[in-house]
């Protein structure tokens, strides 16, 4: 307990002794984490939008005259790509047509016998699953025609892949930058206390005791940077939501406070963990060298 108190005291000594460097690191960490948060929010929203569109995408498979949906249903049920399937009987299809035609529904009576075939309405889990499913359905002899939003499906799949890749790259880059910034700040702090650490090693301080203030310093800088970034992201995101709602009301974006809260909590944890890991790495190398007898 006493060691923890001393470590905490030394952490604040370190932070205030090099206050200029501390502020600079804090701001750099905040900027980098802001970019990281922004990229993640963008990716999350893209994924959210795509999943909403995906949810609405339906593959319609029409059977040949006189054929039922049994074979096609068998195939659809055996596929892990399908989330839901509805069987539309010719009577249900006719009812729908009537509803669609409204005032002109009387015209249907001219058809005499119901000419509409059996059909299936299939929803898949992901946009990428549509094309292989369509291919499988087309080869069935009982299937006359399969309708789906082909181009849209391909574009969505491409967009989904590209946005995931771009946000992944941004994520990696920002993580690398924040790691390097915090790592170097701690290294400078270590060098400024080099003499002190050497004496500590000689008088019998354990590596943990020597490392703790630096590890805490890294955690404070990482967590502090994340807190600043979260405040910035919160206000930016709130304005963006406001703007999108007033101009592009049809665009679906994440507004659930629970999801956003979890995301910001994750960002805060990521900042603190990055700070902790970087400082531990920097100081561990130094103390283990000091502990080695020549």
């Amino acid at each position: 307990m006493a060691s923890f108190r001393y470590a905490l005291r030394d952490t604040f000594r370190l932070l205030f002794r090099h206050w200029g460097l501390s502020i600079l690191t804090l701001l750099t960490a905040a900027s980098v984490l802001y970019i990281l948060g922004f990229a993640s929010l963008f990716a999350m929203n893209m994924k959210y939008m795509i999943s909403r569109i995906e949810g609405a995408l339906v593959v319609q498979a029409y059977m040949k005259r006189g054929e039922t949906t049994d074979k096609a249903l068998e195939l659809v049920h055996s596929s892990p790509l399908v989330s839901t399937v509805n069987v539309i009987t010719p009577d249900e299809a006719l009812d729908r047509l009537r509803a669609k035609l409204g005032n002109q529904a009387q015209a249907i009576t001219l058809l005499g016998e119901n000419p509409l075939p059996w059909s299936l309405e299939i929803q898949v889990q992901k946009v990428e699953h549509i094309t292989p499913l369509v291919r499988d359905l087309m080869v069935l002899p009982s299937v006359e025609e399969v309708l789906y939003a082909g181009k849209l499906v391909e574009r969505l799949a491409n967009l989904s892949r590209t946005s995931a890749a771009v946000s992944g790259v941004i994520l990696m880059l920002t993580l690398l930058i924040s790691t390097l910034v915090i790592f170097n700040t701690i290294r400078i702090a270590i060098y400024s206390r080099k003499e002190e650490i050497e004496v500590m090693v000689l008088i019998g301080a354990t590596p943990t005791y020597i490392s703790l203030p630096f590890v805490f310093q890294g955690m404070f800088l990482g967590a502090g940077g994340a807190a600043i970034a979260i405040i910035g992201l919160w206000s930016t995101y709130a304005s963006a939501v406001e703007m999108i709602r007033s101009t592009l009301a049809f665009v679906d974006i994440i507004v659930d406070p629970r999801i956003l809260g979890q995301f910001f909590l994750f960002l805060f944890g990521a900042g603190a963990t990055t700070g902790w890991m970087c400082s531990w790495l920097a100081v561990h190398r130094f103390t283990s060298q000091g502990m080695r007898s020549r």
Partner: protein
Amino acid sequence: MDIRMSGVTKVFEPEIVALEDVYLSVDSGEFVYLIGMTGSGKTTLLRLISREYLPTRGQISVGDRNLRKLRSSELPYYRREVGVVFQDFKLLQNYTVFENVAFVLEAMGIPPKLVESRSNEVIDQVGLWRRRFLRPPQLSGGEQQRVAIARAMVNSPSVFLADEPTGNLDLRTSEEIMRLLLSINAAGTTVIVATHDQHLVDSYRQRLVELHNGRTKRDERRGRYFIDGEL
């Protein structure tokens, strides 16, 4: 704690032999002067005991610990039992006298109240009570030496090593430091003092080990002489 060295050789790269085949046995509570010219191996010998260096050949044991087999996780705990006064003091320039002494106890995780009382007690013992809030650059050489001694003795080590503790000090201050070291030894601590201050060695007669070119040249106990490391 007793110290045993057998056949200890220390070679630094490239081929600089600092110590060669040294045999030394120091009993618990003994006071030993380590003398010899500059480069004779005095500091190396002390650093081998404090386990800053590992011997190239030979064995060193302090108490029941074989220093060669000491694991790095055990090293901090071993070093707490060995108080060292470094030739260049190694005082922290930004810390006050009190902080320089107290931080040894803090590093051991001792509660603040105990740290304060014990540090004050030792600072008083070395005669620096009035200067406890000054920093090393504000102190004289003798005072800095006393801070270094206070820091080395604050955790009551079993072995006390002092490297040239009276170097560059005037006669009166040297005698004060010497009396301090003798008082530490009187409390049962094993003390080894590396020095080339002949006046000190003659005035306060204790066991004398002389090193020459890294070898034991003589080992004199209460007037008896042992030549070439023969014990």
